[in-house]
């Protein structure tokens, strides 16, 4: 592991740099736009409020929180300090809950839904892709059109179709939510079962969406690998088919891992929209309700958390890549 220090070091520095940039963008973009964010917040709060001193207090609270009356650079440091203390202010639409509180309850739903779904979809897609490349003929003929169809369907389209078929039509699964609407989260079996049942449709819609694109990519990578000399040689030696598939899989997988690192952001954000279709209590639904409620602090915090999620995921995949790519291993031992 010692030899990896340099590789991990560069990756980590890169991670920190991107995080700082994402952080700055998250801070600066809304402030570049016309209009005072604090005024917008107070306008939302003060709708129908008759208590002038109350409105004034809200205005002051948020002016202090964002420090909008101070120079930009000072505002930035106030923002940094607040964020690192986990203080994103109060949510407007869900007052008196704090933004941190809202996010705390929704982020786990998103993480537990999306990362397993993306990984499972990626694995199934890649396996199918290798098989399609190796078996060709019938399997390929059936799989490819399906994959092309799947990869062209937007994530929310897949979600709606699954919802209509399996929840509304066949009534096998509930239509919305993360658990039964008549339940209070606890550790009883009935609650866990309810969570599992509600999990299925959002999970499979994300899995299915990801299978298509991965299968197509993996198929062409594998076809390329299958024409390589080592495969011909292995066949010549009479090595068993499944073993050759294993070799091809390992070689063709490397670019797919890189691909995963590059596209995980797109995958996660696409799946957010699928969450909305199922009213799954994750970040997607949080964004929707924040947008509908004009909840400025919540949106800004959610985008920050999302960026962080994507950055960490990318970082982890790159670390993983370091371990599985023999070329990097070789380069490190020099």
């Amino acid at each position, binding site marked *: 592991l010692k030899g990896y220090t340099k590789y991990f070091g560069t990756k980590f520095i890169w991670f920190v740099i991107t995080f700082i940039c994402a952080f700055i963008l998250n801070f600066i973009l*809304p402030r570049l*736009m016309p209009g005072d964010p604090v005024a917008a917040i107070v306008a939302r709060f003060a709708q129908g409020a008759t208590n002038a001193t109350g409105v004034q207090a809200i205005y002051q609270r948020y002016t202090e929180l964002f420090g909008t009356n101070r120079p930009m650079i000072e505002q930035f440091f106030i923002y940094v300090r607040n964020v690192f203390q986990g203080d994103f202010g109060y949510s407007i639409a869900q007052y008196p809950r704090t933004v941190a509180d809202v996010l705390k309850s929704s982020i786990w739903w998103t993480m537990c839904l999306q990362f397993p779904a993306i990984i499972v979809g990626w694995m199934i897609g890649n396996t199918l892709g290798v098989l399609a490349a190796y078996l060709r003929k019938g399997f390929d003929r059936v799989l490819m059109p399906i994959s*092309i169809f799947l990869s062209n369907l937007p994530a929310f389209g897949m979600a709606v179709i699954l919802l209509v078929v399996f929840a509304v039509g066949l009534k096998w699964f509930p239509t919305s939510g993360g658990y039964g609407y008549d339940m209070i989260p606890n550790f009883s079996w009935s609650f866990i079962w309810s969570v599992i049942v509600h999990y299925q449709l959002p999970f499979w819609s994300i899995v299915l969406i990801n299978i298509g694109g991965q299968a197509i990519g993996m198929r062409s990578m594998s076809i390329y690998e299958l024409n390589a000399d080592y495969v011909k040689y292995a066949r010549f030696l009479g090595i068993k088919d499944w073993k050759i598939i294993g070799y091809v899989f390992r070689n063709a997988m490397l670019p797919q891992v890189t691909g995963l690192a590059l596209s995980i*952001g797109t995958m996660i954000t*696409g799946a957010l*929209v699928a969450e909305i279709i199922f009213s799954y209590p994750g970040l*997607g639904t949080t964004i929707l309700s924040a947008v509908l409620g004009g909840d*400025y602090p919540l949106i800004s915090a959610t985008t920050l958390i999302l960026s962080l999620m994507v950055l960490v995921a990318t970082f982890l995949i790159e670390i993983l890549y370091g371990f599985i790519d023999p070329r990097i291993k070789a380069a490190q031992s020099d």
Partner: protein
Amino acid sequence: MKHLLQQVFRSPKFLVGFGIFMAMLLLVIIYPLFITNPPLEILSQGTFLPPGIYVSVYDSIDASTRYTLLLDDAAAKRIASKLGDDDRLAMQEWLLAVGVSENEIDLQDTAKLLEQWENHYDPAAKIPGMTNAKRNYYIRLDVSLDGLLSTEGAIIAKNNAQTGSLEQKEIIEQTDYVNINQVPNVRVLPLGTDNFGRDVLTELVKATGVSLVIGFVAGTIATLIGLILGLLAGYIGDVVDDGIMFLTNLFTVIPGFVLLILISFSIGQEQRGAVTIAVVIGFTSWVWTARAVRAQVISLRNRDHVNLSKLSGHSIFHIIITDILPYIASYVVMALILQISLGILAEAGLSILGLGPKTTEVPTLGLMMNWAMIYQAQILGKWWAYFPVIVTIALISFSMNLMNTGLDQVFNPALRE
């Protein structure tokens, strides 16, 4: 060039994709010429009218000529429409509950079933375990069954203004028909109406047009930015390359969609027109093009003809235009096609989050989806409000991807099968 085009149009994949795309484009252009209703006109009271032909009841009663058709199955159809299989099963349930034995009930013998129903149904009766909703359902069913087997006509009466009493005007026999062409007010709603009571088909055609424009604007901007940055980074290299690559790597990891959410929300509801959204999408999705163009340019940079051009003292601009651009033109076209379809998808995703273009002026595919979802069309089973939208989006992206694959096979001989 001509040869290349010929080759492109001989690729079956490209042709299919091109055909689908052109058909949609033509529909978007031609449809408004024939059906001139404003796309966002609110037609109906109430939401989600099912697809079909709507005939004015008043006009058809009032129709000048009424025809008599003697159709054998008219009565059977009439009964079937009032008394479906579910209703029959529900009636059986009631009859069983009040103590009629099962072998006495014949679900297919309508006359007997109705007779049994009339004898045994009692709205006041309390059946143990029956919900209120179910009880109300039986009351409605009973009302709708009233007079189902009668062969008499319906009487049209008019209110006499002087006496205040109803006077019989005419009788409509069960065998009376009107010709739909003679009814002045008929409206065809092939896809019904949406949650606001607007004609879904007209709206969908308009929305497809707007979404294509959004995709085109976003795709063009993204491709232009990507192309310029890619050319600069690839050809000039050194510090410029480092700078641009830093930017590119940065925006590969920071998801464009998150930036899109942030920017769209910050712009505010008022300023968010369709074009604004398109521009914002364009400015957040150039990364892939820049990366790919750069890679291509680097592989071209040291070719002989480029070096020759350099030796001849041509300017960088000239070299890029005449010696590099033609080689990557095919790639750029493909990237543009892909960016257009990605732009349409991005708009749809953004609109579902509620961050789409301002809602009152133009529909877009994403907005239609957003409206359908907010009004829970998917749970209410109003498929016409969302399914055509999904199909349209899928078709657009499918046709563009097909065109792309076709082009890829023409330009990269290695991929030909």
